[in-house]
């Protein structure tokens, strides 16, 4: 049984899944195609309905 998990995609979903698993003590490999993680959400200025900053 292998205890590592591979996550493909470093947007908000991939980041959340990585952090959840890593906090449980699972070793996570997060693969992102672009030079930096963040995905589409990083491109957003604010998020609805609270107008919080996206980054």
């Amino acid at each position, binding site marked *: 049984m292998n205890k590592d998990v*591979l996550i493909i995609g470093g947007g908000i979903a991939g980041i959340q*899944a990585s*952090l959840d698993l890593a906090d449980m003590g699972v070793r996570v490999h997060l693969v*992102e195609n672009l030079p930096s*993680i963040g995905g589409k959400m990083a491109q957003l200025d604010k998020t*609805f309905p609270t107008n919080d900053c996206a980054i």
Partner: protein
Amino acid sequence: MLDVGRHPNIELLAYSEVENLEGQAGDFKVFVRKKARYVEENKCTGCGACDEKCPTMVPDAFNEGLGTRRAVYAYFAQGIPSTRTIDPDHCRQLNGKKCGICAKVCQAEAINFDQKDQIVELNVGAVILAAGYDVFDPSLIPEYRYREIPNVVTAIEFERLLSASGPTGGHVDRPSDLAVKADIEPLEKKIKKSSRALEKFEKKYDQTSQEFYNTFTSGEFNDDDDRKKWADKYTDHLSIVQILEGLKEKAKTFGPAKRLAFIQCVGSRDFRFYPFCSGYCCMHSIKEAIIANEHEPETTSTIFGMDIRAVGKGFEEYKIRGGKTSGITYVRGRVAEITEGPEHNPVVIYEDTRERKVDSQDFDLVILATACAPPKGMVELSKILGIALDDYGFVKTSALSPVDTTVPGIFVCGCAESPMDVPESVAQASSAAERAAEIVFQPDFEKGKAIA
């Protein structure tokens, strides 16, 4: 994002792609291609000295091509990892020209033009696919004339115009105005250069260019080649000055876009493309209209939609608040066509189904609420993983197992599964994380999952 970068349990493989996957749930072998950045990740401090000096300008993908970046770049300012990357398509050195300025200014000696792609082999128990989505390409809808009319933009492009860290510093400048401003800078550079050339002549002959030109046009020095050059330089200089003055005069009349139109369901709820609702675009448009109004209180917005789907906690209240305090008008109807009026103003032709009339109205800027489309490369990736896609290219799941793909041990979350907003993506990500944890923590997971 920062937490991912420093969490001891997370190995971040940015600028990488999954090449191959073998095995089964509990024991997958994965090959990942780490693309060459031409910058050593363990040496780069992210200081940015290289991208200050890089001479090559490239359209900035993070800003949807509305701004520029250098050939050596950080994908965006707060990006994790902060390691710079060299764009092999645009770097002068990598394309056989003489340059290497970045390597000279890098004190950490992190630039390595000989770096090669690396294949990393990983052994994992489970896989979570969170490949996200791509914005639907609205140029597939010819009647909206995206890319033909400069002041028709997508919602994500508008997001970059609104952002304080965007190409306009948060000022909602129209793309047609930005294009004029972009023309001014190279002309100014040209004028500086020609002024210097003229100065040399002026020193040499101890005369101002204008005085010389007056005597030259009266017929003197006609057989003096050097002075002829001077005269040519001077006429060129004058013509550039004239063009520049014209552009500058024009730019004085530019102001922020204050009359905005948002067009809903661009590609979604459209039987030619995606017949389903993308879910988040109504709220996205309302949010952008509210933020635009916060930036510039005179801004008014008209949202054209079949209906405004504000389904979610606090969403309906947000929509009403937008209408009452942020200058938003909601028009029920679909837009038939966008044409271009004077001053590059887009003209929206629409049917108002409440008033039962067909009308047209001109705006400063039109924003298209584009559909959520599966990401490019999803078909190839699904073949590598062996998972099935649905008819539209999203990952196939079932209603009672919304994060399970057709391959045991591979889970999906976020927009790769179907269109969804940020809170839903986060909830689904936690759900997928839990399903993956079941596999890595429970040796007898193969017994099968109990379904509610």
